């Protein structure tokens, strides 16, 4: 089996963001980056599947600046066989179509049987790259999967719908799946596996496609609508304030 998993490196959402002077992105200086949460589930599913298929090859791919190698290395330490880094210093200026196209250019003659992506990226939340990639490759795809089963060329997945309902879908490989939170329990790389991963290769490719259909014009902080009363300080005083709030509202 030839398997591909696509990962994005994103900012820690709890970071204190500052808008960059050109207003196209935020300043990255003091920000910690990590693997997109949805992609951790994608990597875990890909690794589990790969482990159940001895003669397989599992490639992890990421587009972005030099720092995204960390996300690739994490995926290698989780169990991917080798990495592909499509280099682009300003990944945030790329739209979903051009990222999907760049992955398509790489993947089109590699005969991947199964491709996993995250359902969406935590920063952009576009939920597009995986599905567009599948459409470009001309293979079927299922989004938002919360269960994955493979048996002799056929895959049965469950798609998450609203309110806890699920849709069951069957299809034959090749196919692409976008992974939802809760699909599995992503493993933590162990120290020996982190060491082993250092020997795994990461192929570098220059990003060459220039076909953005949409480009970020501006980012900004939303105006605080109504907004909460924010209280900080000594826990005892805070507790008294909360109790007073509850009493004022007849809740305690």
């Amino acid at each position, binding site marked *: 089996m030839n398997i591909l998993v696509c990962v994005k490196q994103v*900012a820690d*959402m*709890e970071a*204190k*963001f500052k808008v960059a002077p050109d207003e196209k992105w*935020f300043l990255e200086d003091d920000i910690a980056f990590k693997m997109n949460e949805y992609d951790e589930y994608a990597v875990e599913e890909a690794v589990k599947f790969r482990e159940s298929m001895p003669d397989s090859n599992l490639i992890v791919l990421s587009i972005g600046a030099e720092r995204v190698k960390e996300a690739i290395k994490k995926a290698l330490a989780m169990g991917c066989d080798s990495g592909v880094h499509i280099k682009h210093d300003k990944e945030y200026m790329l*739209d979903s*179509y051009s990222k999907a196209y760049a992955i398509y250019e790489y993947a089109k003659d590699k005969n991947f049987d199964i491709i996993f992506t995250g359902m*969406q990226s935590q*920063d*952009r*939340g*576009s*939920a*597009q790259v995986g599905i*567009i990639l599948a*459409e*470009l490759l001309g293979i*079927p795809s299922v*989004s938002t999967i919360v269960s994955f089963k493979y048996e002799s060329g056929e895959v*049965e997945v469950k*798609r*998450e*719908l*609203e*309110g*806890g*309902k699920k*849709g*069951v*879908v*069957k*299809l034959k490989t090749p*196919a692409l799946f976008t992974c939802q*939170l809760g699909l599995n329990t992503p493993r933590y790389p162990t120290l020996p596996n982190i060491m082993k991963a250092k020997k795994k290769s990461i192929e570098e490719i220059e990003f060459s496609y220039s076909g*953005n*259909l*949409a*480009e970020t*014009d*501006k*980012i900004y*902080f939303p105006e*605080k609508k109504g*907004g*909460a*009363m924010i*209280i*900080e300080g000594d*826990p005892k005083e*805070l*507790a*008294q*304030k909360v*109790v007073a*709030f*509850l009493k004022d*509202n007849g*809740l*305690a």
Partner: protein
Amino acid sequence: MKTLLVAEYRENKLLESIYECYGFTKQFASDIVVFGVGISSDLPQFDRNVKFYFADSSKYGEYNPDFHKSLLIKVIEKEKPEIVIFSHSSFGWDLAPRISALLKAPMLTEVVEYKDGTFVMPLCNNKLRRVAKTSGSQIVITLQGGAGQSEKGSVTPELVDIDADVVSKYNFVGYEEAEKKDVDLTKANIIVSAGRGVGKKENISIVESLANALGGELGSSRPVVDAGWVSHSRQVGTTGQTVSPKLYVACGISGAIQHLAGMKKSEKVIAINTDKDAPIGEVADLLVVADLNQFIPVLIENLKK
């Protein structure tokens, strides 16, 4: 601007989201047409006659991306709308990118607002907002729930039947219903919810003890359920329950859109969070900036006094 709205049907029922798409679209579009794969006994109604491109679900079944996409592309080729709008649901976020890919048209996901002639999208868990410049003559949009004012009328649309011959490799087998719930949060007056900020399973009991002290029920955000710390019946949000208690206390919950969708109708909201910029602040009345594991025991002490 000509705009095409995509209606969603599930199990032969039209979903109300079409009226929100309609209300939103009226802000800028003069010419509106609608597409849907459904049943002719349950048609949308608007405040004027709108052309409705209709395919019968008795022929095409429940959502199948191949059928829906082929039918929809036909309508787009005929009508040449400048904007195609979906609701950002499991249906919309699945179908919209396929249309974007086929048309090679830019797609804007989860639009929250139309402002100064552009579409606004959330960025970084809604902490920031983003607007984009697009190229070409068409764009595809998914609309976040709540972005538009729902507008329903009493005029039944004029139907235009459409057909497509497609083979699909996508085999929809059926639905699996949600698990039975062992608690009904929708009836609770007070809900105290635990989010990922609790850090570990053992700390759930800290949040639970606050729920007990206030005489309320324990709720949670999704990661806490995914980790198996709390049962799914306590999950609040789009894929959990929609609640409207008198008091909602969000402990270590950032306030992602999908969580807010389940609790923003609460009368009073208190958030306990170490991050004072957490988006939960948008819907909270009181945001206590503190480590919940240290703060909650102190709060319980004070409640007993």
